[in-house]
């Protein structure tokens, strides 16, 4: 059980703000086909916090995650990451900012099939220009932390789903980003494996100056969250502690 998932710690207003969204809007398409994916989102994520974004399919969770991570531009509103206004960054500067400050974990893992687990985990360091030997040594360290040291020379196809997600987490964490964003990281895993990988993510990614945002439908991992933001129709409707959310959903904690 997550020791931080209490009302006291999740309130955490003393901790600095990692992510701040103010009236963020985003639409796709034009004319009659225009769809509003984000409809004035206001939200904060504090350092030391794991926030889960939940809601029905198509409610804008992944779009919000993409806008926060700087891989999609909002139409209006303001997104700040660690006091950096994302709208002020353009092109390569924005890409480099992402490379230094954000770690990504994806639903389908997106591991490069031609690279070993160790090489996959080291990719963010390659992007940051680390020497290959040093980057691979650091990758071994992270794979070890995630219990995969003995599989470091395996290719993704030789690993189970849970092992692949751990490699993906190693890749998301290896450059010690200040924000880790995860899109449905447990949807392809069975319940027990899902809990194991989220537990590992939580222990490695959440720190005093770092935060994690997880988009999920998986109620089995809610108890790892400090707060859970409920979305619908492109808005954040409410934010609860994990305890409150689970109680509301009728789950036992």
């Amino acid at each position: 059980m997550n020791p931080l998932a209490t009302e006291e710690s999740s309130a955490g207003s003393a901790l600095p703000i990692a992510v701040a969204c103010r009236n963020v809007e985003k639409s796709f398409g034009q004319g009659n086909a225009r769809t509003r994916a984000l409809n004035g989102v206001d939200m904060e994520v504090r350092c030391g916090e794991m926030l889960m974004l939940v809601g029905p399919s198509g409610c804008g969770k992944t779009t919000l995650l993409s806008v926060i991570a700087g891989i999609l531009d909002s139409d209006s509103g303001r997104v700040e990451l660690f006091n950096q206004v994302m709208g002020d960054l353009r092109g390569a500067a924005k890409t480099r900012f992402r490379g230094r400050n954000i770690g990504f974990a994806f639903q389908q893992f997106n591991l490069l099939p031609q690279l070993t687990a160790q090489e996959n985990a080291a990719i963010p360091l390659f992007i940051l220009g680390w020497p290959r030997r040093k980057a691979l040594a650091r990758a071994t360290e992270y794979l070890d932390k995630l219990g995969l040291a003995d599989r470091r020379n395996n290719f993704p196809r030789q690993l189970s789903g849970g092992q692949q997600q751990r490699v993906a987490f190693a890749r998301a964490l290896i450059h010690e980003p200040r924000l880790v964003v995860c899109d449905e990281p447990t949807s392809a895993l069975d319940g027990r494996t899902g809990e194991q990988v989220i537990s590992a993510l939580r222990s490695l990614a959440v720190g005093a100056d770092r935060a994690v945002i997880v988009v999920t439908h998986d109620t089995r991992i809610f108890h790892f969250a400090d707060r859970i933001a409920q979305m619908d129709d492109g808005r954040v409707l409410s934010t609860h502690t994990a305890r409150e959310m689970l109680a509301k959903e009728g789950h036992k904690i």
Partner: protein
Amino acid sequence: MNFVALKMLVGDRVKYIGIIVGVAIATFLISQQLNIFIGLMGSTYGLVTNISTPDIWVTNRPMQDVDDLRPMSGNELYRVKAVRGVLWATRLFRQTVQVRLNSGKFQTCMLLGLGDQSLVGGPPELLDGITLSALRISHGVIVDAAYARDKLQNIAPGQSMQINGHRALVVGWCRTALSFQGLPIVYTTYSRAANWAPAQRHQLAVVLVKARQGVNLHALCRRIEARTGLEAYTRHGIASKTFWYYMKSTGIPINFGITITLGALVGMAIAAQTLYQFTHDNLRYLGTLKAMGATDGTLARMVLAQAFLTGALGFGVGMGMSGGSFMLIMHFTPVSQRLGAFLPQVMIGTGLGMVVIVMAASLFSLVSVIRLEPAVVFR
């Protein structure tokens, strides 16, 4: 990130080999056809290549190519000699003749008669240590060794054949450049050649001229033309005129041009399609890299590294195929059927062509990578 790019490429073996095969086919087609084209066009002025020493060729007017020589009066030699700037001038006889071999078979040959005294205009390379003075032996002729083997039934020095009923004794072998008509060349003296060949009103085909030291060859040509009414060309000039005659008046350049262009297009289509398909299949991963902080420049360098590696390997394989095919041709076909050679200039030219093709092919991939939205990773 080049390391990642190359591992991505090599890890997808089918596409990796597909791109290399595309580039190799283009390289092979382009270099093979270019070599044959250059060899064939070079053979059009084979007579010029096969007659060494003189600076200027003087022919009867009008002359469209070096195989279209209209005989002129023997007196023209003296008129040319009289032009200021001429160090010496000598006659050249040239006529196709029927040669009767010992087996009774006939073979059409090109008979070249060199100046009786000077023997100027001999072949570029004599074999087995003989000199042109061997032609002073009675009935003496020198023949090309390769043609002797292929078309003159292995005739060797010491053996004889008949030219228009006259005995011709082979006194040595030489090596000549390929002629466009593929006829064996038989060298002898001018008087002997004129005596052996079927009679015609005039017999002097070309006056070969050596200019005095320091004389401008083009100016001397103009002076000879003005004084004699004949046509005068530098060695390069007559070769060039012949080359351009064939370029403008025959279907050779168009046909070879079509083949070379098709080779380049087919190769580019295969390479571009496979390279694009490879990039397209990896867009999700490239998007992942982009999301994780790889800039467009980094991704472009990755695509170019992949294109460079496959281009270099494909070029090497294609050149190997091209060189191998020429080795087979050299080994299994008679000299008269060889239309080209493996030229280093063609290798360099083809290499540059392949750089353009691979760059053009990778452009499609680059555009898709630069347009790629990193948000694709969450779809």
